[in-house]
């Protein structure tokens, strides 16, 4: 039987190194325009990629997820806070699934 604590140590070590290496090594502002632009776009692209279609797969009913996406995007467009948008999405899914399921 292998040691579970060793598995924990290995996975924790790898996870931390992945996160810490760029933050520790890239100490200065990057001057290269392409690289700067790439890093500027990364957050929006990666969060968008992770949001859809995942949001319609996370709910029991895909339609509830789709409604949450529309309502969330609308409220965010109107400038509502992070907290409110998140809570509104939860309520939409909860309400929609009460009706749909």
């Amino acid at each position: 039987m292998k040691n579970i604590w060793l598995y924990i140590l290995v996975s924790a070590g790898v996870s931390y190194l992945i996160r810490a290496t760029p933050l520790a090594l890239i100490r200065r502002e990057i001057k290269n325009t392409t690289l700067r632009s790439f890093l500027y776009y990364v957050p929006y692209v990666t969060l968008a990629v992770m949001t859809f279609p995942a949001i319609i797969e996370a709910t029991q009913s895909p339609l509830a997820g789709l409604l949450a996406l529309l309502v969330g995007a609308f409220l965010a467009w109107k400038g509502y806070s992070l907290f409110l948008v998140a809570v509104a999405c939860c309520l939409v899914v909860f309400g929609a699934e009460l009706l749909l399921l």
Partner: protein
Amino acid sequence: MTDHGKNFRRGVVDGCPIALGYFAVAFTLGIAAKNAGFSAVQAMVESLTNNASAGEYAVFSLVSAGAGYIEVAVMTLVTNARYLLMSCALSQKLPAETSLFHRLLVAFDVTDEIFGISIAFPGRLDPFYTYGAVAVAIPGWGLGTFLGVVVGNVLPPRLVSALSVGLYGMFLAIIVPPAKKDKVVRGLVLLSFLLSFGAARWPLLWGVSPGVKTILLTVCIALGAALLFPVGEEKEAQAS
């Protein structure tokens, strides 16, 4: 003069929806951990030190399949590689003079959600804002995993479904406002939705883990955008 206390409290507020979502998601992880032979404490320690849902899930399934330590290390690297990209982006968001100590501390909890809200912080990132969010999010994550092992999934599926969507709601709150201001970002967000939807259905990519798919799509789309629409200094200043 930066008011660290105020930013910390702001982080706590923005961290609350993250903590709730984490709590719900972590339950399922706890169940996977239990199946892999982890005790509640071991599962909680795994969660508190890894802070990665897909990565931890991969570890639990590998351990229950009797995999070796090297396999676990490689799998953790692959499923969590997107954090490398996020940390690169964060390195440019922190003030250049940020000490190594704060850099190493911020690095500890670079998750999709903490990264998201840290990037949305106006101007340069004050690490204390991130700490505030982490201070509420991590306990939710650890406690959820612990309880998942001990009691299994006692939350009704309806509640889990609702709470986990809160995390995506947060992502929307982060990407939509810049998309409103900048039409390149708007086009990119829509393109990302579309390609990510396509990639989920493209048979050629079925064997590829979601983590790797995220990296492939992010690198391709962001690199294409960087080449076609290079960002000038003035635009970055305006966006932040």
